[in-house]
């Protein structure tokens, strides 16, 4: 118990430090590097007066450290500033977009795990045989697929030729069935390459576990190889699988930018991308920071999940 508390305290400290450093990096990249953010946002044709006016509204007259503290304090209160191009609070914009991105990432993650689990188990159970070679060959191919290209092919086959699913756009959650249908192709495009990675990791972890002495003991007691794999191997193989799943969730949330573009989905990634092309730095800054916070939190939770799955890790730093 004491070990668990010390572990938690240490992890929390690292979590806080990461958040502080990350916010400093984002703030510097967006507000300090471009020189004058107001001039950057307005582009080349802006008159000095409009630049000065925007500087006033953005509070750019203040020194950078003060602006940083303002920004952080605002975010802690849930105030992310007002978007320059949309003229609406960034928090509302982000909340709207998360209603698309979060279900998409969750759906893709579930799909990826649902595909990878049987394939990884199958390949590990048939290690070195034809079935293993075929499964891992397919996984190699899956890893090499750029998700946006896969997305285009899926649209071509399932939306244009077969007309089973919509080619893009999002109808909103007022019609949940239609909304879900709009997310299926993007989720598959995101999930397939991730599933291929996960299946390989799971297979490797299972094979490593199956070489352990305690598995030999289980086998000596009369359990079949597949039985031992399912009853004992899987739990022990979960640590590397959890790491990858944690990394994949953040990747899916952020990596959806490109796939959201293929399907014209109004998600968080597309918001960031549009904000960047429109030079709406306020949206960029807060949305990127939110993503980074999400990634750091997921990493933190993954670490905690390890400690629950594998008590040995509670002691190691």
């Amino acid at each position, binding site marked *: 118990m004491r070990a668990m508390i010390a572990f938690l305290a240490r992890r929390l400290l690292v979590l806080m430090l990461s958040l502080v450093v990350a916010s400093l990096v984002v703030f510097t990249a967006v507000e300090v590097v471009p020189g004058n953010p107001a001039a950057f946002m307005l582009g080349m044709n802006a008159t000095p007066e409009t630049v000065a006016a925007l500087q006033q509204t953005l509070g750019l007259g203040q020194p950078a450290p003060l602006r940083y503290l303002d920004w952080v304090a605002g975010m802690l209160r849930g105030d992310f500033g007002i978007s320059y191009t949309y003229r609406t609070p960034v928090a509302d914009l982000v909340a709207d977009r998360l209603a698309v991105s979060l279900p998409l990432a969750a759906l893709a993650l579930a799909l990826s795990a649902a595909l990878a689990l049987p394939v990884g188990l199958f390949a590990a159970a048939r290690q070195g045989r034809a079935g293993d070679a075929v499964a891992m060959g397919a996984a190699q191919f899956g890893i090499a697929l*750029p998700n946006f290209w896969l997305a285009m092919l899926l649209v071509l086959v399932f939306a244009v030729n077969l007309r089973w699913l919509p080619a893009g756009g999002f109808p909103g959650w007022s019609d949940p069935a239609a909304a879900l249908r709009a997310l299926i192709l993007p989720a598959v495009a995101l999930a397939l390459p991730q599933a291929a990675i996960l299946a390989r990791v799971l297979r490797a972890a299972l094979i490593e576990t199956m070489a352990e002495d305690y598995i030999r003991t289980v086998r000596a007691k009369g359990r079949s190889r597949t039985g031992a794999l399912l009853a004992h191997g899987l739990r022990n193989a979960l640590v590397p699988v959890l790491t990858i799943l944690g990394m994949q969730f953040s990747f899916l949330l952020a990596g959806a930018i490109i796939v959201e573009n293929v399907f014209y989905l109004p998600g968080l990634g597309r918001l960031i991308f549009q904000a960047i092309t429109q030079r709406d730095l306020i949206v960029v800054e807060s949305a990127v920071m939110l993503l980074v916070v999400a990634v750091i939190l997921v990493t933190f939770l993954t670490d905690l999940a390890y400690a629950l799955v594998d008590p040995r890790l509670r002691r190691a730093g």
Partner: protein
Amino acid sequence: MRRLSLALGLALSGAALAAALVSFLWLPADPLVLSVADRLQPPSAAHWLGTDHLGRDIAAMLMAGARVSIAVALVAVGIGLGIGVPLGLIASARAGQWLDDLVMRGNDLIFAFPSLVIAILITAVFGPSATNAILAIGIFNIPVFARVARGAALPVWTLDYIRAARLAGKGRLRIAAEHVLPNIAPLLIVQATIQFSLGILAEAGLSYVGLGAQPPTPSWGRMLAEAQTMVTLAPHVALMPGLAIVLTVLGLNLLGDGLRDRLDPRRVRA
């Protein structure tokens, strides 16, 4: 199986490299010449892989695009190796001390950033170009190589001949460069192949959203972006660049797997 993976990997990545190198000397057509009369032609004797919506020769564009993809990914790997490996070696030489902690926590921090978002941020602040794409991809290679180098180097430091070198009065940095580095080189080569393939994918993604090499330089990602609206009219315009990416990345991954089995004696029996 293992031999097949190595041979296939060498063949596929070799073909991509050859296409890029040959493109400096010879191209089947000028990839920049527009010919509206020849647009969206299917593959033929005159245009091996057909033409795009502006009548440009797709084979020539793919070959010229291979140059960009390979150059961006290669330099990005170079950045990762050049900065990450020394950091990892220093961390391993000072394992458990504050310098080690600093390097590793710095690594964790870079890993915490969604790489694609930061890549887009960098290209957005500094403007889209192949150079900024290289920087954006390269930065994320640094922690990968630092981690691999440190992890691989840690057990090497406990070997007898390294201790002998310490006793002989050699400094830690010199030992790291002269004795530890050669020991971990095979692992670094394998990792470099993997990062190379990830770099090709990342470059394709960035240029797909318009943040990579700028027009008129042909690039695989932008070819796909331009093909997107034409995919129903002429699927080959979208198929060819995608296949080029898949085959190159597949080749590099197979090569990495094959090399790992060949170079790492511990895995030979596995």
